[in-house]
């Protein structure tokens, strides 16, 4: 570029160009124009800076912060769910969730991301679009429970997809095989409809909330408050500085009244059958076990449930999502008879000496009603009527008592309204009465209908939990506690009470004792050493005549019921089993027996252990007392309290629970 120096000669310029022509004055005006143009250009540039830096710097400052400050959620773990002994039923386990940082998400990236993570592209695209209206700091969680392959994909594509952000998360771990699935329920991402409803107003899109069962009922307790970490990132997403951390507040654990030992027995007893089992402590309303079959695997819901699994569950004709223990409204059949007897006794329409003759059937209002025993039961009183479940006897009792008295006492024991159990969507059942018929059908009640209701048929329907509560309260002499699953209630529960004549109660309860122990229909529920009382029920779904004419199978077979409680005079447990299409109540009895046996076996084991423990500590205390340390005044050691068997829960019971709490995976086998 640099040329050899040339000695410039002054002659060159002088000779080549005449002076006059070579002055620069001719361009002076144009140079001035250039200067004006320069001024204009500089003003143009300065006005640009003025607009950006002086007129609205806040706007750009905010955008600069949006660039560099990213908020990453710290997901709060949900509270665990424990059984009454503190054993873990529902736990969490650590996993990674993957979210999209919305500031840097590109739509054309979604396809390779969906492929790499084995997600449905259209789902993902729809999700991203759905979040468009949300503020940018709301993250989109696109996959939970990342597999090692997913993690490797994210790690190796960090440069290509800076929008992918891994966050540690806690995932729900439910019992396997659908154990307790209906009680616990499941969680899921909040839906659009839920967001619009006032119940969920305080939640944000993407929040995982309880959708069903206990998870939903106690969502506010179980759900923690997510925290947030504000960090400064560079253009590649590398964290340069953490500005602030708002720690997550973990959800609270809740303890259920469920006893896993009983639950496991009840689950096994119902294996392969449809129906429900409910075990209550009638003295408190504690639900000790609750089974509904068919069941479902709540773990499929723990992450986002895929469309196919959801369809499989909702399209199932047997409705596995129905919690039959609180939602199945079925005719109680003969299990209603003790209440009919009670209504008759309390209203005085019969006494315990009231006798009829059963010849296998009887006519009322021009129609012949059969007894289940075609040969007839002969001469029948209250006690034998309950023991043998004689239909003709109860036709007469019902007929004498009248539908409205029956309905009144059905209401007293809690039928026809929700028990108030702490689960969503409880069914109420139906107690028919003249008023009920008038209101719902605008028709008058026919006396013949009373006859059907007397043996628990007709329009009468109850849920298993209603039946358990009704019998438990009756056996206690007229105190009906509200069943509940939460062990420690926030507010003291006030039971429903009705003053019953103790003699009447005794008559009914003794009859139910006879059902199990005096050769009645419930012999299969008998237990040695424990006075079990109970009642079978076989509820028709259609008239037997119709059934004979068709070959319709299971669908129209009778439902089998059994309700039992024990001990007879001071009931501690009441168990109801509904065995759908079980044909006869006798078949439901063993289910109840198994659960009761587990209860009393455990109780005996615990009191034995408690006694042993008591003896040991007594020995320790006496040895301390006998120590003679010089200079030390003898210390007054309180005498040990005598253990009260059965009521000694708390400290002694806790000691029995082994240190390593068994994980709530699979059915816990009987010890």
């Amino acid at each position, binding site marked *: *570029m*640099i*040329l050899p*120096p*040339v*000695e*410039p000669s*002054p002659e*060159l*310029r002088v000779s080549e*160009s005449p002076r006059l*022509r*070579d*002055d*620069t004055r*001719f*361009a*002076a005006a*144009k*140079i001035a*124009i*250039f*200067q004006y*143009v*320069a*001024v204009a*250009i*500089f003003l*143009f*540039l*300065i006005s*640009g*800076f*003025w*607009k*950006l*830096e*002086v007129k*609205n*710097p806040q*706007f*750009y*400052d905010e*955008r*600069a*912060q949006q*660039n*560099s400050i990213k908020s990453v959620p710290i997901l709060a773990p949900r509270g665990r769910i424990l059984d009454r002994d503190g054993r873990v039923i529902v736990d969490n386990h650590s996993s990674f969730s993957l979210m999209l940082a919305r500031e*840097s998400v*590109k739509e054309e990236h979604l396809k390779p991301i969906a492929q790499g993570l084995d997600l449905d592209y259209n789902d993902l695209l729809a999700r991203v679009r759905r979040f468009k209206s949300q503020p940018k700091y709301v993250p989109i969680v696109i996959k939970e429970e990342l597999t090692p392959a997913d993690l490797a994909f994210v790690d190796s594509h960090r440069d290509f997809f800076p929008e992918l952000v891994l966050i540690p998360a806690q995932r729900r771990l439910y019992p396997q095989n659908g154990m307790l699935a209906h009680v616990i329920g499941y969680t899921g991402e909040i839906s659009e409809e839920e967001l619009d409803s006032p119940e969920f107003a305080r939640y944000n899109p993407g929040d995982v909330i309880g959708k069903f069962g206990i998870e939903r009922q106690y969502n506010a307790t179980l759900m923690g408050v997510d925290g947030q970490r504000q960090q*400064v*990132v*560079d*253009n*590649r997403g590398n964290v*340069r500085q953490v500005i602030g951390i708002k720690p997550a507040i973990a959800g609270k654990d809740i303890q259920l009244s469920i006893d896993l030992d009983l639950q496991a027995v009840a689950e096994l007893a119902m294996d392969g059958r449809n129906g429900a089992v409910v075990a209550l402590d009638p003295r408190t309303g504690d639900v000790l076990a609750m089974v509904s079959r068919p069941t479902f695997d709540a773990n499929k819901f723990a992450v986002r449930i895929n469309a196919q699994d959801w369809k499989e569950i909702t399209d199932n004709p047997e409705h596995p999502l129905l919690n039959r223990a609180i939602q199945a409204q079925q005719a109680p059949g003969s299990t209603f008879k003790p209440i009919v007897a009670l209504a008759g006794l309390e209203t005085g329409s019969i006494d315990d000496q009231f006798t009829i003759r059963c010849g296998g059937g009887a006519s009322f209002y021009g129609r012949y009603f059969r007894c289940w025993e075609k040969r007839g039961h002969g001469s029948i009183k209250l006690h034998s009527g309950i023991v043998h479940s004689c239909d003709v006897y109860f036709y007469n009792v019902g007929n004498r008592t009248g539908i409205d008295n029956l309905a009144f006492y059905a209401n007293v024991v809690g039928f026809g309204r929700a028990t108030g159990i702490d689960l969503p969507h409880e069914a109420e059942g139906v107690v028919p009465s003249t008023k009920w018929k008038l209101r719902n059908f605008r028709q008058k009640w026919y006396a013949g209908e009373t006859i059907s209701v007397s043996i628990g048929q007709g329009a009468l329907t109850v849920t298993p939990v209603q039946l358990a509560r009704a019998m438990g309260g009756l056996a206690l002499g007229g105190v009906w506690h509200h069943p509940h699953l939460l062990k420690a209630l926030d507010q003291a529960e006030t039971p429903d009470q009705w003053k019953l004549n103790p003699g009447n109660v005794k008559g009914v309860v003794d009859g139910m004792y006879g059902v199990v122990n005096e050769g009645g229909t419930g012999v299969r529920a008998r237990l040695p050493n424990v006075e079990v009382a109970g009642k079978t029920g076989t509820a028709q779904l259609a008239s037997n005549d119709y059934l004979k004419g068709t070959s319709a199978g299971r669908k129209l077979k009778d439902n089998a019921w059994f309700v039992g409680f024990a001990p007879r005079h001071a009931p501690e447990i009441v168990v109801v089993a509904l065995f759908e299409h079980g044909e006869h109540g006798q078949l439901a009895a063993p289910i109840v027996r198994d659960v009761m046996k587990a209860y009393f076996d455990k109780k005996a084991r615990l009191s034995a252990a408690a006694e042993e423990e008591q003896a040991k500590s007594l020995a320790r205390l006496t040895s301390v007392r006998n120590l003679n340390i010089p200079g030390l005044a003898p210390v007054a050691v309180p005498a040990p309290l005598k253990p009260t068997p059965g009521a000694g829960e708390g400290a002694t019971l806790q000691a029995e629970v082994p240190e390593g709490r068994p994980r709530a995976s699979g059915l816990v086998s009987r010890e």
Partner: protein
Amino acid sequence: MARYLSRRDIDWPLLLITMLVCAVGVLQIYSATRDTSWHDAWWKQVVYVFAGLVLMWMIMVVDYHALLRNVPIMYILSVMALAGTYIIGKQVFGSRRWIPLAGGFHLQVSEFVKLVIILLVARYLTELKKDELDLKEMLKLSGLILVPAMLVMKQPDLGTSLTYLAILIVGAFLGGLRWKYIAAIAVVTVLVLPVSYSLLKPYQKARLVSFMDPERDPQGTGYQLIQSQIAVGAGGMFGKGPLKGTQTQLRFLPVPHTDFIFSAFAEEHGFVGVIMVLSLYFVMIMRVVQNAQTAADRSGMYICMGVGALLLFHMLINVGMVVGRMPVTGIPLPFMSAGGSNLWSNFLALGLVNNVRLRRFVN
């Protein structure tokens, strides 16, 4: 003649302003490249500045008339060198602009061709010896300049090739191009614009489109424009302070030490800093124009005005891009952007101005 040259006659104010701008540039390069792989760019820039001063002195010593006499050779060498970059040029940032030299330095030929263009325009217009430029001569001159301009555009480096045209336009305007021709050229330009748009490379089209509507694709081609505006706007009145601009330090701002150095400066020093530096540039250009006014002859005047046009055009395109008022064309800010070729080309241009100044007294 040489003995009349006096060190006192050098345009010291111009040199002082230039050194101030260079100093601001070095500091900003330091701030923008901290903790990056270019973290040594600032002291390289210091070395380039001093090398630039030497080059300036070297070109000052040679009488510009002698340079003008050798314009044909320089022109031919330039065209050959530009063609040569195709063969030995290295692919950097998708453009073939560079010729590798020893020591890892890459020379950008098109930067130095600017000086040849300035001299070419000066000599051509001087030799006409007329106060008016007729259309025939205008087309001839345009043809001469379009050859290297097309070669540079092919590299592809639209920004630099446009600087050649800026020099031509200002030269033609001073040389006495009639207003009606100027109007005709403007009309033709408007008509040809859609055609030339179709000749642009896809990325150039995308840049133009995103200039019109940067938010349309904020992560793509509009990204640089948006990030630059955010950086400038976030600076506010007094700036975030040196080393404290988040856009610059966290690298949301693209190439904050070269093309977008003024965004980085605006973010960290605010409107006040911007006004101060722009004032320096304005005075710098006005000094160059003043040297044109005091030049001893027309060729000197044309040389100075060519340099002034070059600097003004760089300011308009680069700073305009920084505030989002010009599309992204990728030309550096004189004396501030990191990089040797442009810096030396600018020092050589100032050397030409001083060259004319030193010989302004006709005796």
